[in-house]
């Protein structure tokens, strides 16, 4: 619950008053003189020393057993120590040694104590005995559970083939995301999806690969933006924090880093509808209308070109922008099409010295020609064909041309002068960069937003230079090319992947490839085939997916559904037939392979009941299936025992024990020196005996800022798909274009009279994805989703601060609690994903807890999808609101309500496998 200080004693009782009553200009400073001698009040008596008085029940450091490990409360992987008393975990303390968190740890990490000893942490496998949704279960043994899962899987596989089998991953936190990706293909599954793919990582990873060929993306989270983590070098001078909220989502990681950077003078621009903590410290805040990011990005492109602020040297030498575009195919013109005996590996440019087309060899760059950046030129090819072709840069300029500051301000609900101020800060403080978050991944312009960010960074030359966001560290200077999204995936699965094979081919970029609405459609209609068994390795699919009511209805028809999870969620409550208990992160042996140049252990410190590491469970499922199907092998599974899995996590040629011993002895294991790790401008490097620099790992070896990579992915699925899909399925369907364009959201405040308010969401520091909503200390702080609402809008609807509000979209209605704040534009609302685990234990009216306060009941899985990657609309859609009298029945709000979730400490048990 947000507490605003206004009067005395607010510490104990939050008041409903807001501090907005106090206007600017009131200084209120209490200047202090630190050297002033303290005075002791006459009434005070100096009494005997502490040691004789009972004023502290705290436990001194030396009474704890301390085990070095790594937090997995989110995906930041902060180094920490687990403090144990009598073998029981009591607290989590940050430890220095890794640049990621610099010894700090946030409330999500600390909350592991209440997570692992949660009364509802599943302790053994359970099988459904009542009807689905009745929440009646019986304990079964691991052998029975695995055998049941295997029998069902193989039965479905035999009857329907791989199309009958559906897997899903995701989650985050203790729910590790990778185990199903590495195991299900061997069994014969065709489909695996994660809400995070097209709605999170895929658009940005796909764009970076299609533009630069690189497997990285423009972010300071998730192990990206690594050079920024050396703030003392002071190479980066400005960051545009675009649709991300580092202070809340990786508080001790990139959130902490932002503070270091600002303290060193780094300028920041925050593009976010919410006045986030980083916005409150920014040089410029651009509170953009949700869903209009591509318009703003195109205005940046236009401004940079118009003011010639681009890096001309980089654009000329290392991008495809000077190449002429074949107007028929939209690909770049190769020399063989224009010149007699032209080399098909050379591209055609317009030489401004001779005013004629010239072939441009990759290397060396000819000194006797001056390619034009801009313009459209007419010429005849050697075979007599007449061309009218523009350069890539000209095409980009034209794509951005309509986005003047005035038009952009009108479209994005911003002020012209603020946009220009941001651009000046971005341009004048070099090296600058964009750290691009998940926000733009969550609407149908996802891929175009990601492409735009790459274009802005590309034309500015922010590519693998000291201080730039985009880097390829740790590859010894050898650029690593993008690769098929899932190496282990079978060709058969690839060709049949729902939605992705025929349309959204950039969704092969991550290894969780199926297009979510296409999966729902297949379950519902049976077209092109019907998945009837669902194997989930994430957390709460009914809170993570848009329109969970449709999923619930569709999935009820499925034959068998089972999940791996550390505790029951709405998904397990409503749909599962079998639940396999996975470990919380403090129970797992695992690893952080890429902590910069370090490889860091993540050690089990306790073990509860019969929980098993999710990777071991996934391996055991493969093993169980292999007993019924000779074609299935356990050869490549991550590990059939806890020990085997741990050993597979150690650096090469080391056992897990050796690795941990080495860490204890010498500190974190370094794969190479920092100097060798941080290699810049890899594209200029000559690898081994090469006679040419390696360039970028794209077909042209240039950064393809003009989007030929998009056309190639449309036509073939490459480089993401397992096979070239062109000869098998033809080009992808849908509106793929080589350059960005703006499209107004399908539900828009410009036209929607019935649902007049724009809705978006964003992270809060208390939770990671769907996790921790059952954590007493965290729910006490944030019991219900806060609805950000401007005072003007609130007044229109008669809503006061902390009032309950019914929020309705065309999909459904949920309840949230108002935070009336100037930190958001009039007409715009923002909230947070939520679900209510307490509803599953409501004695009066139990539910799955997904329908009361769940943001995704409102969001939209239909309609416009991103043509390249299939993203649907989780942000930037329309809602209406009205005041509600109370929280939904049975939802806990008061701190004491959460008492049933306080920890039940227990002794550690032996590992199961």
């Amino acid at each position, binding site marked *: 619950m947000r*507490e*605003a*200080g*206004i009067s*005395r*004693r*607010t*510490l*104990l009782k939050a008041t409903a008053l807001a*501090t*907005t009553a*106090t*206007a*600017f200009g009131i200084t*209120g*400073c*209490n*200047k*202090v003189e*630190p050297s002033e*001698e*303290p*005075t*002791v*009040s006459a*009434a*005070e008596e*100096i*009494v005997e*020393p*502490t040691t004789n*008085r*009972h*004023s502290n029940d*705290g436990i001194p450091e030396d009474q704890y057993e301390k085990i070095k490990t790594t937090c997995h409360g989110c995906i930041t992987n902060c180094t920490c120590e687990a403090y144990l008393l009598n073998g029981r975990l009591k*607290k989590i303390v*940050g430890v220095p040694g890794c640049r990621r968190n610099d010894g700090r*740890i*946030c*409330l999500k990490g*600390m909350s592991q104590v209440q997570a692992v000893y949660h009364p509802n942490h599943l302790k053994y496998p359970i099988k459904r005995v009542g009807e689905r949704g009745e929440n009646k279960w019986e304990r079964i043994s691991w052998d029975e559970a695995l055998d049941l899962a295997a029998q069902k899987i193989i039965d479905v596989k035999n009857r329907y083939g791989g199309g009958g089998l559906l897997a899903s991953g995701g989650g985050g936190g203790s729910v590790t995301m990778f185990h199903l990706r590495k195991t299900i293909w061997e069994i014969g599954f065709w489909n695996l999806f994660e809400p995070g793919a097209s709605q999170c990582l895929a658009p940005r990873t796909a764009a970076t690969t299609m533009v630069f060929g690189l497997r990285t993306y423009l972010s300071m989270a998730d192990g990206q933006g690594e050079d920024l983590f050396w703030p003392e070098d002071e190479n980066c001078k400005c960051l545009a924090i675009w649709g991300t909220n580092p202070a809340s989502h990786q*508080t001790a990681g990139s*959130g902490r880093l932002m*503070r270091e950077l600002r303290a060193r003078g780094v300028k920041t621009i925050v593009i976010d509808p919410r006045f986030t903590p980083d916005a*409150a*410290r920014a040089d410029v805040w651009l*509170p953009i209308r949700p869903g209009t990011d591509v318009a703003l990005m195109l205005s940046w492109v236009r401004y940079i070109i118009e003011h010639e602020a681009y890096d001309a040297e980089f654009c000329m030498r290392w991008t495809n922008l000077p190449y002429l575009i074949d107007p028929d195919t939209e690909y770049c013109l190769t020399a063989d099409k224009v010149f007699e005996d032209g080399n098909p590996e050379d591209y055609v440019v317009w030489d401004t010295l001779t005013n004629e087309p010239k072939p441009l060899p990759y290397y060396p760059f000819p000194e006797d020609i001056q390619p034009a950046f801009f313009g459209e030129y007419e010429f005849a090819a050697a075979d007599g064909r007449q061309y009218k072709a523009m350069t890539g840069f000209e095409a980009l300029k034209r794509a951005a041309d309509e986005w003047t500051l005035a038009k952009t301000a009108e479209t994005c609900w911003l002020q012209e002068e*603020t946009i220009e101020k941001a651009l000046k800060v971005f341009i004048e403080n070099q090296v600058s960069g964009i750290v691009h978050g998940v926000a733009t991944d969550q609407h149908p312009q996802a891929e175009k937003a990601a492409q735009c960010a790459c274009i802005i960074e590309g034309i500015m030359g922010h590519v693998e230079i000291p201080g730039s966001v985009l880097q390829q560290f740790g590859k010894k200077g050898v650029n690593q090319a993008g690769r098929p999204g899932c190496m282990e995936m079978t060709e058969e699965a690839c060709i049949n992947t729902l939605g992705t094979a025929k349309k959204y081919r950039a969704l092969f970029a991550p290894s969780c490839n199926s297009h979510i609405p296409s999966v729902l459609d297949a379950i519902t209609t049976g077209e092109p085939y019907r998945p009837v068994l669902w194997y989930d390795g994430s957390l709460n699919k009914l809170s993570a997916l848009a329109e969970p009511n449709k999923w619930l209805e569709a999935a009820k028809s499925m034959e068998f559904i089972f999940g791996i999870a550390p505790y029951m969620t709405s998904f397990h409550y409503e749909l599962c037939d079998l639940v396999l208990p996975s470990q919380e992160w403090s129970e797992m042996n695992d690893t952080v392979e890429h902590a910069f140049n370090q490889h860091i252990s993540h050690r089990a410190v306790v073990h509860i009941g019969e929980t098993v590491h999710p990777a071991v469970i996934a391996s055991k499922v493969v093993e169980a299936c292999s007993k019924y199907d000779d074609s299935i092998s356990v050869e490549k599974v991550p590990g059939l025992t806890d020990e085997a899995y741990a050993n597979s996590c150690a650096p090469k040629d080391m056992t897990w024990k050796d690795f941990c011993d080495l860490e204890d002895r010498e500190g974190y294991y370094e794969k190479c020196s920092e100097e060798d790790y941080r290699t810049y401008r890899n594209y200029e490097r000559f690898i081994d005996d090469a006679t040419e620099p390696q360039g970028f790992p794209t077909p042209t070896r240039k950064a393809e800022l003009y989007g030929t990579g998009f056309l190639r992915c449309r036509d073939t699925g490459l480089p993401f798909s397992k096979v070239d899909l062109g000869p098998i399925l033809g080009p992808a369907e849908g509106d793929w274009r080589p350059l960005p364009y703006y499209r107004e959201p399908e539900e828009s405040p410009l036209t929607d009279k019935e649902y007049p308010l724009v809705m978006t969401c964003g992270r809060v520091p208390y939770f990671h994805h769907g996790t921790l909503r059952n954590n*007493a*200390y965290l729910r006490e*702080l944030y019991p219900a989703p806060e609805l950000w609402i*401007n005072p003007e809008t609130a007044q229109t609807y008669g809503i006061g601060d902390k009032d309950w509000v019914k929020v309705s979209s065309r999909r459904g209605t949920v309840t949230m609690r108002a935070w009336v704040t*100037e*930190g*958001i*534009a009039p007409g715009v609302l923002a909230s947070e994903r939520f679900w209510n685990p307490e509803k599953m234990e409501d004695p009066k009216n139990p539910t799955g807890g997904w329908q009361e306060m769940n943001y995704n009941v409102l969001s939209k899985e239909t309609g416009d999808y991103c043509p390249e990657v299939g993203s649907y609309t989780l942000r930037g859609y329309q809602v209406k609101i009205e005041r509600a009298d109370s929280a939904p029945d049975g939802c806990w709000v*008061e701190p*004491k309500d959460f*008492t049933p979730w*306080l920890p039940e400490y227990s002794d550690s048990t032996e590992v199961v496998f």
Partner: protein
Amino acid sequence: MTRIGFLMDLDRCSGCQSCEVACKYENGIALGEYWSKVLTVGPMGKYPDIQMYWLPVNCQQCQNAPCIEVCPTGASYRDSENGLVLVDKDACIGCKSCLGACPYGARQLNEEKQIVEKCTTCFHLDEPLCVRNCPGACRFIGDFDDPDSEVSKKLAVADPETVHQLSDSGNGPTTYYLLSPKYAQWQDVM
């Protein structure tokens, strides 16, 4: 003399409340009870020209502590060894006089034990967990009478315009806040 107190760099605080949670784990505090809180101050102004900051508040270690003055049993006392304002749990009768006396509401009735408690600066540790774990590295603790302590040094180099304390009606809090006017104007919220 030792004068132990916190220094909070509000330029670095994002209001994540990790300090609250750290305090609860370290001191085993019940749901609904707090020795440490983070208040949201603002946004002040009118959209989009606004400012906001966060204000972590716990016992301010007053030099003329009203809680000691009003305590009828001497349970609230100043420790002669470390100079801290503390509560002797055995001597507290739970009369709550000090709850009313504290200008900052920094004291907490422990409902189960019916005694009053508050931040002890975790003097059983080398460093309080709220300081050690603080993700933003906003919180510092030390002896303001020792010119070589980290907090004294930080205070000495701070621009006087950025240095603030909670309102002082003669009680003399020993907690300092740093807030740059470029981020937000300090507000007298408590």
